């Protein structure tokens, strides 16, 4: 029997570029002016600049160029859907291979993290205090940017570790935990205090936070995973917990022999990949709509297909079947596409008499997350259930700002968008907290 070692099968998928590979690739960059890759990047990293610094051998300068625009540059180098962003916009993409921007960014940021080098220093103290709620990419970025500007920042994180989804939710194949934690430490070294296992409403008082700090930034992410609302649901494993266990406790992760994954977003793809790599003989993604409507990025879909994951489109689970506490199958019904629904996509309708049982011994669900519930608790105005913010990322409460997935009423939630929110909110908070007009932050 083959022994599966998680540290091998779930290790970072893409190897780091060698020095030679990086140099050759960096030289291939045309050094476009007002480059489309920079425009396409939500944080607008000056990509030709950082690439040419790799070519010139100025790796610290390269990393600084990246981190100036995107403090979570090492994470983004790994998790960004570059095909949809920078690399998708590369002028070489039309007729040649686009520049491997993500991997070059990883090369430059790894260079400074591996050597324990800091490219920024804390700013001169302003005497202003800011609280950040949630230590995910948006919160850490906001905290770090504010610290660079001299503000005293405390981050409150409900989990045991900081880093948010970078630590808990991105599969190790794409980003090892160490990368996320190195970014947390970098933010700490900028003078930011990070207090973990502190949660609003549990052991952290909202009123005290508002009194003790000059401004607050909420980066609380999304809420719980919604219920499927089908019989046998208690047997279903939550996808985010599945990924978290694979990252932090892989030897205690139980993976079935035949795994059904419900949902067809990027998290579902990640769960399917983990199940397959951890030894499941058969992994089937069950999705009630068709291939066309699935929300996973095309490159993620193509990746899992290569991993050997199977797909059952137009299939809705209706019951988890168990025998003696052990899952034995997923009863499903076939669907047909009808008129567009509220999301604008054709609404799937069950086909009468089409029920069948998909044999499986584990069911994992990855069907998105609920809207942040904290908004109502704190009395914030919302937009489509997300926290409502203005152009400065300020909520309906003065000096309370928000960013990241919790405000993502428009567009797809992603790490890089969260980073941009955190950065822009930090600049807005800085403008608010400093009396001088024309804030230096810009």
């Amino acid at each position, binding site marked *: 029997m083959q022994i599966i070692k998680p540290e091998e099968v779930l290790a970072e998928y893409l190897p780091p570029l060698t020095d030679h590979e990086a140099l050759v690739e960096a030289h291939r960059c045309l050094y*476009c002016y007002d480059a489309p890759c920079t*425009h*396409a990047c939500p944080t607008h990293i000056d990509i030709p600049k950082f690439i040419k610094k790799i070519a010139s051998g100025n790796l610290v300068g390269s990393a600084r160029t990246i981190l100036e625009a995107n403090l979570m540059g090492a994470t983004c180098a790994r998790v960004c859907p570059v095909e*949809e962003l920078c690399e*998708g*916009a590369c*002028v070489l993409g039309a007729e040649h291979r686009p520049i491997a921007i993500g991997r070059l960014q990883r090369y430059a940021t790894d260079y400074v993290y591996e050597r324990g080098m800091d490219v920024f220093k804390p700013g001169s103290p302003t005497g202003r205090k800011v609280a950040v709620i949630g230590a995910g990419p948006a919160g850490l970025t906001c905290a770090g940017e504010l610290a660079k500007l001299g503000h005293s920042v405390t981050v409150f994180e409900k989990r045991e570790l900081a880093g948010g989804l970078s630590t808990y939710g991105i599969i190790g194949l794409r980003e090892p935990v160490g990368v996320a934690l190195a970014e947390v430490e970098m933010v700490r070294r900028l003078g930011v205090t990070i207090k973990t296992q502190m949660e609003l409403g549990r052991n952290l008082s909202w009123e005290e936070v508002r009194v003790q700090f000059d401004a607050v930034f909420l980066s609380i992410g999304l809420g719980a995973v919604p219920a499927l609302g089908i019989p046998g649901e208690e047997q279903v494993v939550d996808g985010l917990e599945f990924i978290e266990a694979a990252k932090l406790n892989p030897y205690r992760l139980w993976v079935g022999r035949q795994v059904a994954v419900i949902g067809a977003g990027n998290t579902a793809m990640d769960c399917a990949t983990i199940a397959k790599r951890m030894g499941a003989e058969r992994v089937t993604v069950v999705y009630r709509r068709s291939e066309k409507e699935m929300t996973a990025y095309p490159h993620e879909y193509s990746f899992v297909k290569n991993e050997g994951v199977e797909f059952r489109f137009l299939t809705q689970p209706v019951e988890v079947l168990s025998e003696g506490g052990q899952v034995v199958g997923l009863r499903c019904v076939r669907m047909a596409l009808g008129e567009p629904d509220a999301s604008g996509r054709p609404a799937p309708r069950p086909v009468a008499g089409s029920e069948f049982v998909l044999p499986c011994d584990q069911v994992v669900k990855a069907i998105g997350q609920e809207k942040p519930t904290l908004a109502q608790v704190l009395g914030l105005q919302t937009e489509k259930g997300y926290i409502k913010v203005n152009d400065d990322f300020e909520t309906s409460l003065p000096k309370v700002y928000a960013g990241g997935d919790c405000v993502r009423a428009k567009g797809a939630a992603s790490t890089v968008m969260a980073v941009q929110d955190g950065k822009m909110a930090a600049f807005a908070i800085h403008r608010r907290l400093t009396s001088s007009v024309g804030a230096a932050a810009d």
Partner: protein
Amino acid sequence: MADLRINFAGIKSPNPFWLASAPPTNSGAQVHRAFEAGWGGAVWKTIGAPVLNVSNRYGAWHYGGQKMLAINNVELISDRPLEVNLREIRDVKRHWPDRAVIVSAMVESTPQAWRDIILRIEDTGADGIELNYGCPHGMSERGMGSAVGQVPEYCQQITGWVMDVAKIPVIVKLTPNVASVVPPARAAIAAGANGLSLINTINSIIGVDLDTFEIVPSIGGKGGHGGYAGPAVKPIALNLLSSLGVDEVVRRSGVPISGMGGISTWKDAAEFLLLGASSLQVCTAVMHYGFRIIEDLVDGLNAWMDAKGFKTVAEVVGKSLPRISDFKDFDLSFRAVARIDPEKCIQCNLCYVACNDTAHQCIDLVDADGNRVQPYAYDLRSNGKHQAVTNRPQPVVREEDCVGCRLCHNVCPVEGCIQMVEVPSGRESITWDQLTKARPEVGTDWEAMQRYREEVGIEIH
């Protein structure tokens, strides 16, 4: 198939490609292998005065990820015993009667020393002799090499001593480390040289080590100038070659020129032929990739000659020389403007930044609605490949303001995207020479120049 055979001052070879006098021709074994690969001839690494070499003798200049755009060396002439070299030369020539075996020589500047070496070379059966007046390092400190080539009188005197003795063709190899190669060339011709060759290597320091502050390459902590060669020197070589080709004295003498300096491909070779070289010597490209490159040098040159209808090498030689002109004879009324093909343009904007920052500010960025926009004008909240690509402005040349400098054409990474298009200037043809003969004040007085410009409609802003 074109006939690639050449007859250079009586030295015959099956193709015009000779290995230059350098490390590739250091020994009989190497030259045997080169001839097996197809080289038409070899100029043996210079033999003559006794020398000792040092380690770390080759430096190189790398650029943009490309290795060895140029090499620099402080290697001296052959450090192998003279007898060994002469024996191997004899052996090679016996095995390869159809190939050109030329022996480069350099000895101390006395008639006796030159007489001795010439006789010994001729005794090998070699086809010709090349006098090394070019080596810019080491040997020149001992009064040889470029120390001779830089002084026309020495060139003439030593060449005279050689010609008094030599019965086989003698080629004088010139140094580029002079203000003009014409005087030493004329001196060699005056002394009766049968051929000229150029260029030898150029004085150079390849670099400085940023960790140790030593010169690169470090020779026991020291370094110094060496001889520079390779692809990067080709334009310099072409200029010096053409300066001989257009010189009346050189031309009238009918003395053939063997061209070298950065020849790496058949295209380089064709350019050297077009500018007057009738044999070609190669070194750095061989030092980079080995003798095997001869295959494409011959194959490519052949294909090009066939395509252009040339039957012999002689038909190609010097064909572009009549195009060499001085600035004063250029047509001041010739006008060309840059035109960007939007179908081919990938919108890298390298033309825009080059023109705007460093040339004549006549390329605009134009959006889909035809409006001129500034770079980086997009909304910072926009992102993603779709927004970045679909809203990207197109660089467009404002032709009325374009001076036709050709910088954009040069920086454009897309073949055939930016073309220089000739447009009527509306002015009669006139050269600077003609203009200043007719109106001398235009060349000395800005107000007169201004009047002239207004008269003929030249607007400069």
